């Protein structure tokens, strides 16, 4: 890169630093920075690295708990899953790059989140993804779906980690900014967790993995700005992934850790060598000096600025224990990885970079953390949608059409076209995945009787209409999904996707959604252990629907007790546990049948949610329930249809006792579960004794999906329609 003919102040603005932020930098240095120093400060103070707009909101989350070993602040969260085992997990966005270059953007998103997990000493064992695309009719949507899905598959399949669960939504609100949120779950031993803080001065700093190239320079800065008409020109800031290199990196890293040579370790993710070196030295309270000439380089003539800002993938930085360099050399050679000792920790508290014999950067580390800007940005109370009364929501003109519209619309149709491109079975521990009828993915804790349940959830249309209730609902639904497979929910990771926080109405969404999430986490004893914030998801001033995605993990002490919803048998009785008032605000029915997106979302009674879920989980653990499904999008009708399709057994729903059948069948009231049992009486009595509503809502019989006089749809036809939309769309037939 040629040195531009701009003043440093102008360059600072180009790098995304606000004038007040640049002034702080001048004050701390007591002089004008050079370009390298400016680059270091601008990425560390970017929204992506500093969380400057969201930190005050994130402070609201409960982050501790009986099972929390490490909460937010490290590469990923760590929880105790008994017997000396730990589970390490995190979700992260790769939204901006995936829109510009879908295959590589999504692929490197998967690679990046895996590194966050194995950097802490865990072997990745499960991947999930939460995808939001624009309207199917938008010109870019088909190409983005295709690229993102093959990118996720291409990376995860090659590395050999099963992709077991996920969610995909379509909405015009994502036309200009898609969301690609990837989650990785790993397993480690609780006494072998690795952290990033460098312990002392005088330790070797070792670089290993792929060589550094000019890709992804200032990617973190791109992810901290809005898109405009020229966004396609940002393609060079997207990195290119090499999953084979990642596979080697995982094995080498875990082997290096097992050898006992690692004192501290950090992957090179966003802001690459800058953030990894600064984090390790800064957290350890030491200094660091790097010789840029020693950095393995893929291209010739790279400047220190380019090397420090590159986001080339599949790279690690480790501080080795004194005298253990030979262990590193042996392991890197075995796995064929580039590696070099590029520096040393010091006691100066400064980041010093040497290149071609000159000092090209010499700045104190403390201000990078201590003086990182922190904004309590102004916000306004979001405009709330009114609660809809029954009279506000008419019954459908045609019941069969309405049922098929709800069950087969883009959001609800089968996503087989997507998940069949993901290896869901590698590692041979997958018990439940996207293809099996279950509310969460379930993988065994290898070599034990334990299982981990994993899910990802967010209902953006709820958050849009009421960020507070919607925020509560994301957490509650994740908790409910984990419960429905019989697991004990433990903790969550969050991925907050919003628009430009400098707009008070967007900041209002962030404030209220996180208020709701925090309250739900407290009520459900469901702490946040890791997370990621993606702001500025806007194009030409239009923001995405607020999308605080929740990734959650639950523990099955004995995986044999896990249940799904594919085991319903002819003659079973369908029992609904939980109360139906009839919430159709912001529902799928309202949108798909009536073409409206108004109304208050269903309120979440967190105490009831907990009571109902605990009851259901107890029954599963007691072996009394084997077919369980939570109610969410599409309400009772969707849950019953899922059960019928997964079990290949007809269902006759009974809506005769309801005042308004459509409100009863399509309502999206929370804290409800549908179960199929051979005999309902004992269960209903048990539920009522526990103070819960429970009633018979249908029977498993025949080969139709039906409800009295309202509709009768052959299950085979429903299956065909449910499966048809996505493949037809991807082939350009719709």
């Amino acid at each position, binding site marked *: 890169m040629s040195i531009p003919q701009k003043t440093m102040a102008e360059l600072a603005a180009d790098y995304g630093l606000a004038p007040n932020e640049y002034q702080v930098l001048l004050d701390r240095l007591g002089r004008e920075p050079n370009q390298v120093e400016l680059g270091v400060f601008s990425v560390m103070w970017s929204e992506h690295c500093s969380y400057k707009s969201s930190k005050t909101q994130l402070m609201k989350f409960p982050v501790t708990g009986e099972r929390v070993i490490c909460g937010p602040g490290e590469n990923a969260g760590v929880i105790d899953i008994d017997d000396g085992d730990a589970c390490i997990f995190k979700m992260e966005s790769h939204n901006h790059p995936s829109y510009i270059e879908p295959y590589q953007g999504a692929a490197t998103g998967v690679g990046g989140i895996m590194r966050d997990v194995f950097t802490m000493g865990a072997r990745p064992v499960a991947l999930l993804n939460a995808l939001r695309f624009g309207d199917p009719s938008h010109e870019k949507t088909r190409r983005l779906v295709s690229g993102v899905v*093959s990118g996720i598959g291409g990376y995860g399949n090659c590395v*050999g980690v099963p992709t077991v669960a996920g969610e995909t939504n379509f909405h015009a609100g994502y036309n200009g900014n898609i969301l690609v949120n990837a989650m990785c779950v790993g397993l480690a031993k609780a006494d072998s967790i690795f952290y990033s803080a460098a312990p002392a001065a005088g330790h070797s700093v070792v670089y290993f993995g792929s060589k550094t190239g000019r890709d992804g320079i200032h990617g973190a800065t791109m992810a901290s700005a809005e898109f405009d008409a020229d966004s396609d020109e940002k393609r060079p800031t997207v990195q290119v992934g*090499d999953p*084979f290199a990642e*596979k*080697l990196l995982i094995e080498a890293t875990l082997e290096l850790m097992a050898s006992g040579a690692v004192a501290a370790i950090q992957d090179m993710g966003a802001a690459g060598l800058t953030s990894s070196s600064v984090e390790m030295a800064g957290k350890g309270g030491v200094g660091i000096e790097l010789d840029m000439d020693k950095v393995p380089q893929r291209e010739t003539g790279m400047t220190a600025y380019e090397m420090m800002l590159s986001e080339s993938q599949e790279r690690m930085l480790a501080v080795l224990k004194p005298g253990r360099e030979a262990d590193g050399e042996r392991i890197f050679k075995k*796995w064929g990885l580039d590696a070099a000792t590029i520096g040393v920790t010091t006691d100066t508290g400064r980041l010093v970079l040497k290149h071609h014999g000159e000092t090209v950067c010499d700045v104190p580390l403390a201000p990078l953390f201590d003086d990182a800007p922190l904004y309590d940005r102004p916000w306004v109370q979001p405009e709330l949608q009114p609660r809809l009364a029954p009279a506000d929501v008419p019954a459908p003109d045609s019941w069969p059409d309405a049922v098929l519209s709800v069950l087969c619309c883009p959001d609800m149709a089968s996503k087989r076209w997507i998940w069949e491109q*993901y290896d869901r079975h590698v590692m*041979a521990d997958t018990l439940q995945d996207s293809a099996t009828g279950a509310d969460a993915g379930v993988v065994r804790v290898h070599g034990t009787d334990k299982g981990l349940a994993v899910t990802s959830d967010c209902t953006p249309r709820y958050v849009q209409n009421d960020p507070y209730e919607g925020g509560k609902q994301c957490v509650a639904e994740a908790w409910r999904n984990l419960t429905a497979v019989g697991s004990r929910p433990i903790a969550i990771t969050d991925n907050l996707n919003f628009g430009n926080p400098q707009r008070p109405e967007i900041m209002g969404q962030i404030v209220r959604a996180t208020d709701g999430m925090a309250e739900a986490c407290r009520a459900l004893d469901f702490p946040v252990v890791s997370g990621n914030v993606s702001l500025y998801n806007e194009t030409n001033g239009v923001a995405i629907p607020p999308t605080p995605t929740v990734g959650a993990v639950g523990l099955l002490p004995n995986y044999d007790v896990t249940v799904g919803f594919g085991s319903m048998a002819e003659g079973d009785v369908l029992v609904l546990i939980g109360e139906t008032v009839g919430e159709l605000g912001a529902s799928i029915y309202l949108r798909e049948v009536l073409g409206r997106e108004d109304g208050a979302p269903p309120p979440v009674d967190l105490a009831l949610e907990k009571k109902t879920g605990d009851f259901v989980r107890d029954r599963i653990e007691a072996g009394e329930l084997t077919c369980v499904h939570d109610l969410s999008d599409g309400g009772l009708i969707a849950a019953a249809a899922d059960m019928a399709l997964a079990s290949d057994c007809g269902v006759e729903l009974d809506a005769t006792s309801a005042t308004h059948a459509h409100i009863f069948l399509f309502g999206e009231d929370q804290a409800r579960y549908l179960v199929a049992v051979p005999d309902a009486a004992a269960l209903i009595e048990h539920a009522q004794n526990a103070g819960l509503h429970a009633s018979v809502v249908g029977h498993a019989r025949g080969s139709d999906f039906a409800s009295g006089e309202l509709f009768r749809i052959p299950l085979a036809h429903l299956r065909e329609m449910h499966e048809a939309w996505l493949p037809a769309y991807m082939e350009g037939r719709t």
Partner: protein
Amino acid sequence: MSAAVIVFPGSNCDRDCKVAVERSTGQPVSMVWHQETELPKGLDLIVLPGGFSYGDYLRCGAMAVQSPVMQAVKQAAEDGVTVVGICNGFQILCEAGMLPGALLRNAGLKYVCKPIALSIANGQTRFTAGYQGQREVVMTQGNGDGNYFADADTLARLEGEGQVVFRYVENPNGSVADIAGIQNARGNVLGMMPHPDRAFEAELGSADGAILFQSIYAAA
């Protein structure tokens, strides 16, 4: 009975194969790194596992054939040791010329992961004798290049000599003659795209793969 799984740097089913054979047969399995030039003495079974041996940015399995360990694997097969290549392992066996034909890009041009029903085309092999007349088995598969192809002469020979071991009940990838797995003329080398190593316990959806490993051990 002694078995080994070959580990290439990009193998990702190496542990799965080890666990599957161990759980199916109760016998320990050793791991052999791709840089080795010799195999452990007295092996009865060698497994080439699935994965992306060297990234497979070139033709799948093409680089693995050049790795030091493959000379020893070829020699062992010539000496009569049983060799099973699963998924990427099948691709490697074809690239190495140890099995005829080639695995092309799937007809749908996409990676396909799903449980799949297989018919046993030859129940009289050392790999399938244990199925004792069972006509169909279920395993899962996951690959982007599982579309088996062989020219007409080769195909006629495969069919005529009973070398087709497994066929897809519903062809997922365009494989010629619905072929999912074949053995060599001598009957000691098997290549198959579906994963018996992911179908060795009922909770994984199928335990049919266990019988394949048990069959090999019973024949040894």
